Every structure is written in structure tokens, then in C-alpha cells.
């Protein structure tokens, strides 16, 4: 029995490691490319170790791009602010849809589901016109406010809250906590794993968002990192060396955030499915 267990464990590790290699290869290649010269990347010779190790690409990004730190600030402000608002608002809406019975609930839920299904390509221009009317073009709020809720994660939070034990809420309401107080004091703390997952996704969404800042932000000072660092694609020639370095630079912060929130998936407590 034990021996069998040992074997299956080993097999599991083999599978896990193989998958890890498949996942890592593209990134190792991208990382090594970010230290290559443009000539070496273009030469078409595939190698994981740069022939001629250079920091030039990073120098171009950090030093030659005078606005780099401004772009970083913009990205952090938009992604940070947007994520905070999303966490509160999505959870509130998800909670209401899962636990409070109010007239019109079904319709709102359907509506929220329905809007996820409409491709952004058709709402892009009307959205732009609305932002223009509000005078929110080229501003942080133009980026944050229209995206401060996210139908996907309202849906996700609803699915999480549906399994939430009723007893806890009842106990809390006996303690004299009102709905909102209970939501903040009892429900949210128990939803940490879901909130952590949401935080990562929403942050990533804002952080990697390209098309919206591209259209909304007109001043170079207001660009986000994705837009600012995408200027290495010429009409005819693409500068892979810079693109790879830039992609490394903007993947890193998200990775750090992921690692931070990751711990919540380890020691989460939360919803016991009461079925």
C-alpha cells in the first residue's frame, strides 16, 4: 500500500515537472532574448544563452525612455485604484445577488451575465463618446470608473457566496450587526481566497490592458506601461530585443503580487459547502 503510494507520488512529480518545463521554456527564451542584441535575435539562431550578454535593452527602457517612471506610476495608480474599487463593488454585488432576495434580482443577474457576452469591439466607439462627454479622456478616472466593476467577478463572487453557510449570518445578525456591518466584518474576511483570486485577476486585467489606454490616453505623460513600452514595433521592423525586455519589466510586478496573494490559497478557510 505504502509502496504503491510512493510510486504514484513519483509519477505525479514527473507529470508536474514535465508540465512545468513546458510552461517555462517560452519564458526562459523570452528572458534570455531580453539580454540579446537585436542582431543576435534576428540571426535566427536559437539558443537559450545569449552569445553576447547585453544590458542595452534594459538601459533603453529605464534610461533612454525619460517617461518610464511616469508610466510606471500611471500603471500602478490605475491598476491599484481600479483593483481596490473592484474588490469592494464586485463583492457587494455578488453578495447581494447570492444572499439578499430583492425584486428585480433575477433581471439584474441576467443583465450582468448578458453584458459579458457582448464583444468590446462594438462598444468601444460609443464608450469613447461617453468618456468624451464626461470630459474624462486622457485622465485616470476615464480608465478606472468605467471598469470599477467587472461582471465576470460579480458572477464569480456570487458563485462563491452561494455556498456560504447561513448559520454564520444568522449568528452575526443576533449579535446586532446589520447587513453591511456583517458583510464587512464577517463575510469579507471569510472570503479571503476568493478576494485574493479576484485581486490578482483584476489587477492583471488593468495592468495588461492595452486597447483602452491606447485610445483614451493621448498625452505621452498619461500613457500606461503597456502603451509606452509598445513603441518598439515599427512599420516594417519589430525590435524584439526591446519588446522582450519590456515584457519582462512589466511581468515582474504582477508576479510579485501573485506571489503575495498566493498565500491566501494555502491557508484559506471560508465556505464549507453545505449540501
Amino acid at each position, binding site marked *: 500500500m505504502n509502496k504503491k503510494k510512493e510510486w504514484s507520488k513519483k509519477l505525479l512529480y514527473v507529470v508536474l515537472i514535465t508540465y512545468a518545463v513546458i510552461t517555462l521554456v517560452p519564458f526562459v527564451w523570452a528572458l534570455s532574448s531580453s539580454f540579446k542584441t537585436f542582431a543576435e535575435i534576428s540571426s535566427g539562431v536559437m539558443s537559450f544563452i545569449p552569445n553576447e550578454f547585453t544590458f542595452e535593452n534594459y538601459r533603453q527602457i529605464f534610461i533612454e525612455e525619460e517617461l518610464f517612471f511616469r508610466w510606471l506610476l500611471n500603471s500602478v495608480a490605475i491598476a491599484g485604484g481600479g483593483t481596490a474599487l473592484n474588490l469592494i463593488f464586485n463583492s457587494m454585488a455578488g453578495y447581494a445577488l447570492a444572499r439578499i432576495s430583492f425584486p428585480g434580482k433575477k433581471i439584474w443577474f441576467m443583465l450582468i451575465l448578458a453584458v459579458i457576452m457582448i464583444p468590446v469591439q462594438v462598444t468601444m466607439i460609443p464608450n469613447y463618446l461617453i468618456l468624451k462627454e464626461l470630459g474624462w479622456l486622457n485622465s485616470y478616472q476615464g480608465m478606472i470608473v468605467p471598469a470599477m466593476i467587472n461582471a465576470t467577478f460579480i458572477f464569480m463572487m456570487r458563485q462563491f457566496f452561494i455556498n456560504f453557510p447561513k448559520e454564520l449570518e444568522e449568528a452575526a445578525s443576533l449579535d446586532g450587526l446589520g447587513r453591511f456591518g456583517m458583510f464587512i466584518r464577517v463575510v469579507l474576511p471569510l472570503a479571503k481566497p476568493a478576494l485574493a483570486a479576484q485581486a490578482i485577476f483584476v489587477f492583471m486585467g488593468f495592468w495588461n490592458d492595452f486597447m483602452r489606454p*491606447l485610445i483614451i490616453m493621448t498625452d505621452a505623460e498619461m500613457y500606461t506601461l503597456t502603451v*509606452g513600452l509598445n513603441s518598439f514595433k515599427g512599420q516594417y521592423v519589430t525590435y524584439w530585443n526591446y519588446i522582450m525586455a519590456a515584457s519582462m519589466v512589466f511581468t515582474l510586478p504582477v508576479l510579485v503580487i501573485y506571489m503575495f496573494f498566493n498565500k491566501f490559497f494555502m491557508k484559506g478557510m471560508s465556505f464549507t459547502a453545505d449540501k
Partner: protein
Amino acid sequence: MKRKAWVFWSALMFLLLVAAGCSGNDGTTSGDGGGESEDGTTELTLAGWASSPEEEKLLNTQLEEFEEENPDITVKHEAIADQYMDVIKTRLVGGEGPDVFYLDAVEAPSLIETGVLEPLNSYVDDEFDAGDFEDTLIEAFKDEEGETYGFPKGYSTLGLFYNKEMLDEAGVDVPTNWEELEEAAIELTTEDTVGLGVAPQMARLQFIGESRSGDMVEDDMAAFGSEEVVQGLQPLVDLRTEEEAAAAPSEMGSESTGEMLGQGRAAMVMEGNWNVPYFEETFPEMDYGVAEIPEMNGTQGTMAYTVSYVMNQASDKKEAAWKLISYLTGKEGMKTWTETGIELPARQSVAEELGFEDDELRGPLVTGAEYATTWSDGPNLPTIYNNFDNEFLSAFLGEKSLEDALETGEKVANDEIGD
């Protein structure tokens, strides 16, 4: 609890109000905010796509020179990182378009049709000398009445770029007609190298498709399924499918035919002058030459690509905008722009002054301008070339006969255009 909720909601409303309040100030920074600012200077916005660091530097030099000459005008340059036309169109719809912007000839007819571009004939004076531009280039920016909507900042043409060493080794001369090209390509093909690198796109091949007096676009409709066009392109497809002496970049793991040449995966390619600085930077060791594209069916042909500066019809700083355009496309400005050879000068006088005709690498490209097909063909060209590219690739890779592929493509394109 009630109090808490109350505090929360009022905080939220406050936040929203603040957000709305702040915006009042920001809103006016873009294009529509009044002609002049308080200190009497006019701020123009100039939008273009992002490109190489060198091009960026050149443009900045130009703009500095311009601002020095015109102290009452400042220029704000917006480099749109990607999907340039989508962004520009969205901004134009919203009335927030830049005052002056780049426009590729291929997009020009459809934009002219919508009336968002300012007609420029009335601005042109003798000093500007509009007759100095190459006729074939400026044609794409005119409407039927002869009104001009943009002036080219420069142009590029295709030439035959070849690897000298490979040609020497194989003992092949630089081909001057299609038969010689075929022979040379077959001769030059080895295990790792094809004779001819081909970009399977209408933007690169239109002149070949039309070499047997066919017309790929007729009355703004797709016509590339015609017998003449098929005959024009068939030799190229045969070279790939029968002789296996030609290949597309994606087949060889390259991004462009230029890269194929640099990587030694193709011995000859049909490429543009932007490769000259690119090769210098990335493949400094390579010994290559440039020749005119070989004659096809007894006539010379190549493609020309051009980009103009155009003015937003909704701009309220048109005087200043014209000053900027006339500087950038004027003799002086164009000289600054084309001196290093990123683009070829669209003005004959500048071309003569810079003497590119005698340049070993650029000479054949400059000569090509006389007989080139300019990449622009009516407002429906984007739909037409989209369907061509889509189907031609299958034929080029031998998945379908060329005739079938082009017929299907033509039909679909015309269905899409409708009436």
C-alpha cells in the same frame, strides 16, 4: 450599522464627485480646446505611429527646426503604439482627432470619401511648389476633382535584394528578367536556403498580378480572379510548389523576407529601402546588393509605398497646421527627413540634391519610382487585399490551385463590398 453604511455611501459619492470634478480641467487638453492658449502660442498635435528610435530622433529634429522657425507654434507629438488606423478613426469620430497626422496611401481614398480630411489646394502657394512631388505618389491623395488632401513625407519602393556571396558561389548573375530569376532561384536553392523569399501579400505582389495587363481592382471591386491575374501570378506560385525554390517567411521561421535574406534563408528577396538601415544594424557582416526587380513579360514593375501628412478637417488651428505640413513636406523639412535614407524623398528636387540615384544600394530603388504601382487603389482596397492575402497563401503553399483560390477570394471580397 445604518450609520456605518451611511458613512460609506457618502464617502463613495464624494469620491465620484471628486472624480467628476477633476475631469473638468483635464478635458480641454485635447484637440478641441480653443485655437490659442493664453501666452499667444498655438499648440498643434501631430499623430503618427511609433517606429524605430532613429526615426523618432529624426522627427524630433524636424520638429525642433520647425518650432525655431515658428516660435508661436508648439507641436505635441503623439506616437500611437499600435493599431494606428483604429485609434485615429475612433478619435476622429469623437471629434478629438489630432490636427495633423500620418496617413498611408492605402487608407487615403476611403478617408477622403468620408470628408474628415481638409482639402489642401487652397493653402498651396508657389513657394511650396506642389509640382515638385512625384506624380504617381501624390495621385493617391487626390479625389476625382483633383483636390489634394495630403502631401507625401517620403516613399519606399521594392527592389531585388540579393546575397552577393551566394550568387558568386553558385556562379549566377543578377537576374534582369523573370526567366533568369527562375533559373537563378532554382540554382541558388540548397537545403537551408531558398532561391527567392516571397511575402505572399497583395501589398507586395500587386505589380506581378498586373504584369499581364490584368487588373486586380476594377471600379473599386475585386477583380483578381481574372485569367490575366492568375497568369501573372502563376509563375511565382509554380516556383514555390513545383520547383520548391521559393518560400514565404513563415515557412522558414522568419518574420519578413528581409530577415530571410539576413538569416541566409533566402538568396534573393523583393524588399524595400527600409532594409538598408536595418541590415546595417542587424546583419553588418552580410554582403548584399540591390537591383531593379526583374522585367516581367517585357515590362518593368515594382510597388511604391507612401505616407502623407494630412490635416484634420475639424481642426481649429488650420493656419498653423498648414505651416507644419508645408514645413515637413517642404524642401528643407524633407531633406532633413530623408537625408539618412530611411525613406526616399518624394520631391524630385530633394532627390537630385541628395543624389540617391547614384547610390549603389538606393539607385535601383529610386529608378523604380518611375514605373512603380503605388499601393493605393480606391476605398475598398483594404477589404480586397484582406481576401486576397487570405486565399493566396493557400495557393502559394500548394493547398489549392491558384485559380480556385483567387476566384473564391474575389467572390467573397465582392460579396463583402456589396453594391
